């Protein structure tokens, strides 16, 4: 054990002396700290803005003047998705989804205004979040620091000296690995600090950090394994850069494009057109004489034992609006669920195959843990839809109960009737406060387990390969 630490501290001394290690370490530190600060500030101010806008939207709605309740249905309401605690480290799909939805009657709008809309286009690595710098760049820096750890001894012939003095090749490899582990642990510090500052719950924060620690561990072992198996530093570097490009850059993108080709999702416009055709039989809720509502009218007339809709104690137009909205929402929800399911199918296609790359596993697991994945976005869409349906139907209820049918039908031509259809703003208090939360921590932690397992498997495999490579250490040198 002492020998292992001795070799490790020797490696550390080498890094300190050669400017390479110092430069790589410094670069990693600057990079992660910069992206941490930038993302944290941005996400924090986003959170404040969105929470403030949410309150403002609620107040604006409740402060509207007296008007026809159906006008409030179209005036609509906004809901905002505030970023989760860990979004400061991994904003996930947040920059791609849009984070505000306009809620109105008869429509399910999609989230609008993703930051991509007017952002400067800076290429494929433009969104360098703390998460991405740990996923992509820290491994690259570890490669630059670690590719020559074992090969250097081999090229200088010092491994033979060590072995003859009683140090086993496995110990040499272990020492180098411990040294690189030390470097990785040091690089992890800014992330630990960021996680603590993010105010995430203890369990989630630990799960998140464990994920990244295991990921970096898998890279440390991949690097020392490649170094142990390579005859020369240059071939170790060639192998490692190829592995890095394959695992971190090519594989995830191949998986994404394979998911899109194999499981294409319908475009929004095409879905909208299907919805329109499906809705042709539902009837237009603005038009109480639409034949679709004949049955409804007949039932009501019978129930209240009257001859004409004018004699009903309630406003028939409000009833129609309510019935139409309910039917329409069923259809809209069916298509929305279908759309979400097809996206989830793509994601689970990627999730199944991504065991091929620890990078891809980490990427999805990190988003999921942070509550910034598509699943959480879908949760937001569903909650927003519940709010939408609730306030629209509450307004339709007001429309039904607080207004005479005769005023309602004459309001376009009779100014007095129009005035009477303007309902007291007291009624706008029906709107409920909206506060969005990601899935509970326990649920996310349970989902995290398989990913931790896969990355541990990578750690195990890379470790075994490195250990096997170490045993060849001296033989290759002799050959």
């Amino acid at each position, binding site marked *: 054990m002492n020998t292992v630490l001795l070799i490790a501290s020797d490696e550390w001394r080498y890094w300190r002396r050669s400017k*390479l290690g110092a430069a790589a370490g410094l*670069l990693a530190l600057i990079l992660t700290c910069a992206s941490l600060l*930038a993302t944290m500030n941005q996400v924090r101010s986003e959170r404040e803005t969105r929470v403030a806008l949410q309150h403002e939207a609620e107040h604006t709605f409740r402060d509207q*003047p007296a008007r026809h309740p159906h006008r409030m249905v179209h*005036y*609509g309401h*906004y809901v905002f998705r505030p970023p989760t605690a860990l979004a400061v480290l991994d904003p996930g*799909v947040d920059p*791609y989804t849009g984070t505000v939805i*306009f809620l109105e009657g008869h429509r399910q709008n*999609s989230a*609008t*205004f993703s930051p*991509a*809309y*007017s952002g*400067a*286009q*800076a*290429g*494929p*690595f*433009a969104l*360098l979040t703390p998460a991405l710098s740990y996923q992509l*760049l820290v491994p690259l820096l570890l490669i*630059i620091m670690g*590719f*020559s750890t074992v090969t250097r001894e081999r090229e200088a012939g010092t491994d033979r000296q060590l072995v003859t003095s009683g140090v086993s090749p496995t110990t040499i490899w272990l020492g180098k690995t411990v040294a690189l582990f030390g470097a990785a642990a040091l690089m992890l510090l800014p992330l630990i600090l960021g996680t603590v500052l993010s105010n995430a719950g203890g369990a989630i924060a630990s799960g998140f950090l464990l994920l990244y620690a295991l990921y970096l561990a898998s890279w440390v072992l991949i690097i020392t394994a490649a170094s142990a198996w390579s005859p*020369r*530093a*240059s071939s170790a*570097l060639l192998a490692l*850069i190829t592995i890095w*490009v394959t695992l971190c850059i*090519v594989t*995830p*993108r191949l998986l*994404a*494009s394979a998911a*899109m*080709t194999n499981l294409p*999702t319908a*475009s*929004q*416009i*095409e879905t*909208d*057109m299907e919805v*329109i*055709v499906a809705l042709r039989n539902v009837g237009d809720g603005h038009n109480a004489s639409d034949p679709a509502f004949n049955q409804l009218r007949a039932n009501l007339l019978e129930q209240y034992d009257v001859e004409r809709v004018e004699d009903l104690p309630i406003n028939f137009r409000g009833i129609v609006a309510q019935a139409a909205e309910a039917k329409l929402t069923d259809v809209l929800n069916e298509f929305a669920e279908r759309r979400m399911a097809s996206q989830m199918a*793509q*994601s689970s296609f*990627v999730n199944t195959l991504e065991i091929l790359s620890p990078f891809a596993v980490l990427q*999805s697991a990190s988003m999921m843990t942070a509550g910034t*994945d*598509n699943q959480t*976005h879908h949760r937001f869409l569903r909650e927003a839809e519940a709010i939408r349906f609730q306030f629209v139907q509450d307004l339709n209820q007001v429309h039904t109960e607080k207004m005479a049918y005769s005023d309602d039908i004459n309001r*376009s*031509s*009779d100014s007095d009737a129009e005035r009477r259809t303007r309902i007291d703003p007291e009624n706008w208090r029906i709107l409920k406060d909206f506060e969005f939360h990601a899935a509970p921590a326990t649920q996310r932690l349970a989902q995290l387990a398989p990913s931790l397992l896969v990355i541990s498997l990578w750690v195990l495999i890379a470790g075994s390969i490195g250990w096997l490579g170490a045993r060849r250490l001296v033989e290759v040198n002799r050959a």
Partner: protein
Amino acid sequence: MHSAIRELRFAITDKVVVMALAITAILAIYTISTGLTESASERALIERVKALVTEDREFTLAKQGDAGSAAYNAYHLTYQAPHALSFISRGVRDDLPWKHRIRMLALESQIYETDTGNPELSRIGKLDFDFVAAFLLPLLSILLLYDLRAAEIRNNRWDFLSATSGNGLRLLTARAAVRSVLLYLGIILPFAIAASLNGVSLTSIQVAMSAVALNVFIWFLLALFVTYKTESGPTAAALLLGVWFTTAVAIPVLGKLVIEDNIDLPKGGEILLAQRETVNAAWDLPKEDTMTPFIKQYPEWANEATVDQPFAWKWYFAFHQVGDQTVAPLSQELSQGTRQRDEAMNLVSLASPSLRTSRVLSRLAETDIASFQRYNQCVRQFHAQLREFHYPMLFGRIEYSKEQMQQLPTFVPCEAST
């Protein structure tokens, strides 16, 4: 010439070179074929949706009895068809809208609708030809070139070679040049073939080929310089990777931060909110408050602008137009700012060969910001055309009739200015 042939023989017998070339060619062919498939499916989608929207418009219009309901219910598809070269770069086409279903209501509430796919897949990023040619190619260059001199030094041949060939640098140059040319051919031949088969103009092909050639040449020079200055392969590789990281990642990211910090834009949400408030407030305001600003913009309707009923379609569409007019300054600010940010990014790209190459390719593919803005302009023109068609019927100068509705304008995609 003689040395070039010898170097070529060396290169094609070197396992690393052959492997790198194979990877390059496979990636090029793969990205080009997925790009072509994507363009084809976009064209098919446009045709399909166009038919659906047309069928639905005719179905709906057949039931409308007045000019207002007809204008309110008639939806139109606007779109930007993929360019012949769009297979080389996705650009902003996955993030920004290139198709809309619009009607005569306030355009500002419709034009920002973005029809994006699975955000988790968008986040992973695209593997398109542009990505390979601009961002991966330098990495392949580094792998092929970083060890050329160090390997000779390691095998104690460098001094010998320098002595026999007279000049070590010349030999190094020839060797690096041969490998760079092979790498270039590996990526550009699949492109040239695909482009000429798809009827792309010769000029565009030439520009794309030169852009990629320049990228390869820059990395050839960088590698030559770095390897000549350093003795050890790993150090050369680390330095070159550092340059790649700085130019491909750090400079664009920093540039983006600085640009977005300095060129402020109105938030998209502000436009939507302002637009919604104006349009909704109009219901409670005296009719003149809507008609006066409308007439200011469209004086030709001054004589028909009186509204004496609580509701009239001409007033309804007027307040939608006034809603657009009210937020027009914001909306112009947004598009001007986006353009300024893009121009600033263009300057930044001078310091990043990868970003530069990528920008040239997406400009040729018409998937860049400028072409997105041209499409937006095209939608605005069509919306104006629609309003000009419906106003005479809404203001009662022309009688509404099914025959008159036959003249309803249909969307024609705008030709690119380039």
